[in-house]
């Protein structure tokens, strides 16, 4: 109706355990130290693209509004530049919190529709699990092919550029003995992560 939307949050919308679960991830313990000063959003170069600024994400996580937090763009826009961590007056591990939220979102299969970053993460993860290394060009082709093949076609000029500067390689990089990595990783398990099967 004329673009009017109803916004209200009932207390039953909150997940009382969410905040503690995130704070239990090492690096995220200081989440409840936040005084909401906004320094993180002020310094984050990507905050102007986010639907929820980093400060809002901390606030909503602390309050327990899990659905809002796991479905926002913010966590996938974060490039882990750590500018916020270095400026935060309460020394909160904001980037670590973003990672914890990313892992949680991947596990629950929740992210904004069509957002390429989670798809990239999954492809990356699978490649490393199998081969132990990634090959940049192959990675881009395989993930864009999945998420956004029109863009892939649109990047033909860049492809040509790379070819002419002899940086275009479709060789699949791999470890000599990927088994050595797989055996290490097989016994290491995250309570908070892992791709949803």
């Amino acid at each position, binding site marked *: 109706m004329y673009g009017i939307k109803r916004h209200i949050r009932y207390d039953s919308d909150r997940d009382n355990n969410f905040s503690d679960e995130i704070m239990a991830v090492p690096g995220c313990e200081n989440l409840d130290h936040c005084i909401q000063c906004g320094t993180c959003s002020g310094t984050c170069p*990507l905050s102007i693209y986010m639907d929820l600024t980093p400060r809002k994400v901390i606030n909503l996580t602390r309050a327990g509004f899990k659905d809002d937090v796991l479905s926002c763009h913010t966590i996938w826009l974060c490039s882990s530049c750590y500018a916020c961590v270095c400026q935060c007056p309460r020394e909160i591990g904001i980037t670590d919190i973003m990672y914890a939220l990313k892992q949680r979102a991947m596990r629950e299969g929740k992210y904004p529709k069509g957002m390429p970053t989670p798809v990239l993460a999954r492809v990356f993860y699978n490649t490393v699990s199998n081969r132990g290394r990634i090959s940049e060009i192959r990675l881009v082709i395989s993930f864009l092919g999945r998420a956004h093949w029109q863009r892939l076609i649109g990047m033909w000029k860049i492809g040509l550029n790379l070819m002419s500067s002899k940086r275009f390689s479709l060789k699949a990089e791999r470890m000599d003995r990927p088994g050595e990595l797989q055996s290490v990783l097989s016994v290491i398990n995250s309570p908070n992560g892992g791709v949803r099967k």
Partner: protein
Amino acid sequence: MKYSYFPGCSLKGTGKAYEKSFLAVCKALNIEINELDNWNCCGATAYMSVDEMKALGLSARNLALAEARGLDLVAPCAACYGILIHTWDDMEKYPQRGDQVKAGLDKAGLKYTGKVKVRHPLDVLCNDVGLDKIKEKVKRPLTGLKLASYYGCRILRPIATFDNPENPRSMDDLMEAIGGTPVEYPLKTKCCSASHTGTLPEVGQQMSGILIREMEKRGADIIVTGCPLCQFNLEVFQEPIRKRFPEIRPIPVVSFTQLIAYAFGLGENECCFKNHTVPVQKVIDEKVKPVAAGAR
């Protein structure tokens, strides 16, 4: 001086100019440096988004491989460097995680005590080798060439071990040592957007564009980087970036080791200027003032 070398996936792919020039510079300075055997990807941002503990395991394995050799580990790629250091720090700060990871490493017969030091080539060249030694080896000083040193976000954050994270000087000092003129600008450690230039171009190319524009505004002839992804973003995407920032002129972007290799008088095999879409040699020829024979 002996070190172990962790290339990372980028240096074997699009960043091979960085690898070649870095190894050549090491050779010229009599630094013995050997690639780790059977190393694995550091995980970058993407892997850590999926599984925290396994990401820790990835990097810890590389650190354990290096520990077996007993030498400092040099990681030229800033992202790999940042992640290895962060892993090392995490293992110290959270012993319960560390124990889980060590159990995994144990399975492959690897030991981790955390005594390996992770270094960046900037650190090694400025602090271990020293600027004076670098100056001695310069045969082709880049006099008159204005260089914007771009550090990016992971070399000095969140843990800065060898330079000031607010006002870094190591790369600028190195460029000065090889005869160049450092360009001062306030965006030296502002993120280039990492993988967003490809995945979210409206965001990533805008961020990288702002950097290029400001560096050019302050008079830079060449942009110098310490990370293969920064180098890739600032160079390869220049054309689509120019659609948003029409005032940007093509500007070459190289890794700092390539310029050092050139200043040392090494050849194209080592400097790898042909591995660039924006021509490098042309700008050097135009801007470098020839120095009288015998003078430095």
